[in-house]
């Protein structure tokens, strides 16, 4: 599989500014955060980042998932600001809104699981991303 650089994932970003979240993504997970165990945060954030990149790629391949594209891009921007360092591998394609919703539901569960053991501000960010993915899943299912 072809590796995608972080810069590649980031291309086309800047929508976080339009959403008014760029300041948030930095401030919500600043470097002076008192992590319980930085390795836990790093591993968790990277795990969520990889899954989020796959969701972004999947949403981009579906014409009816424009809202999801914008939101997943904002999540990725926030995760990078939180210290995500993993290089992602080209994800498997997502071929329908139902499959996208299932993947978003799984991402919500992953974020929730990681959030419970993370340092405070990372925990808050991941809980919010979990909630956002759960919301997106409910929208995709309804559409």
């Amino acid at each position, binding site marked *: 599989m072809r590796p995608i650089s972080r810069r590649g994932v980031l291309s086309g970003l800047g929508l976080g500014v339009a959403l008014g979240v760029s300041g*948030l993504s930095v401030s919500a997970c600043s470097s002076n955060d008192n992590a319980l165990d930085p390795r836990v945060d790093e591993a968790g954030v990277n795990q969520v980042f990889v899954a989020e990149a796959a969701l972004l790629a999947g949403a981009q391949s579906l014409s009816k998932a424009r809202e*999801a594209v914008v939101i997943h891009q904002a999540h990725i921007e926030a995760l990078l600001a939180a210290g995500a360092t993993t290089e992602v591998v080209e994800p498997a394609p997502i071929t329908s809104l139902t499959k996208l919703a299932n993947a978003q539901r799984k991402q919500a569960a992953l974020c929730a699981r990681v959030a419970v053991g993370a340092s405070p501000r990372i925990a808050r960010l991941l809980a919010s991303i979990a*909630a956002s993915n759960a919301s997106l899943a409910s929208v995709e299912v309804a559409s």
Partner: protein
Amino acid sequence: MSVLDRLQLALAGEHAAIYGYGVVGGRLTSQSGRALTNLNAHRSARDQLSRLIVSKGAEPVPADPFYAVDISAGTQKQLVTTAIAIEDRLSVLYAELMLENDASARGIAVEQLQGCAVRATQWRGRAQAFPGLSQVAPTN
């Protein structure tokens, strides 16, 4: 602020949400079923928070007898806007509860934050990127 303080704040928020949905749900003509479902979800969250607070040796804050709910315009749109505001405000409280290093409190917070965000999305018709965070960003 201690974890108990934040749990009590969330509980107070759930009391207000239950009252608010009572007011809104009784006036909605086409979506009263959704309001009732959401009301029951908030009752469940209230009970969950109360049990955790008791387990930590404290007494859960009681509900106020009255809450100000702005329904002056009396339109269906205003009622939906009020329902969204209920969920958004609670989302902030649950997001802040995540700042506490307490697994049981975080377990409730992460679950209820998702619930609030999904319900707000159902009312709003679209999802948000960072439920519970936008209103606290400037101070952090």
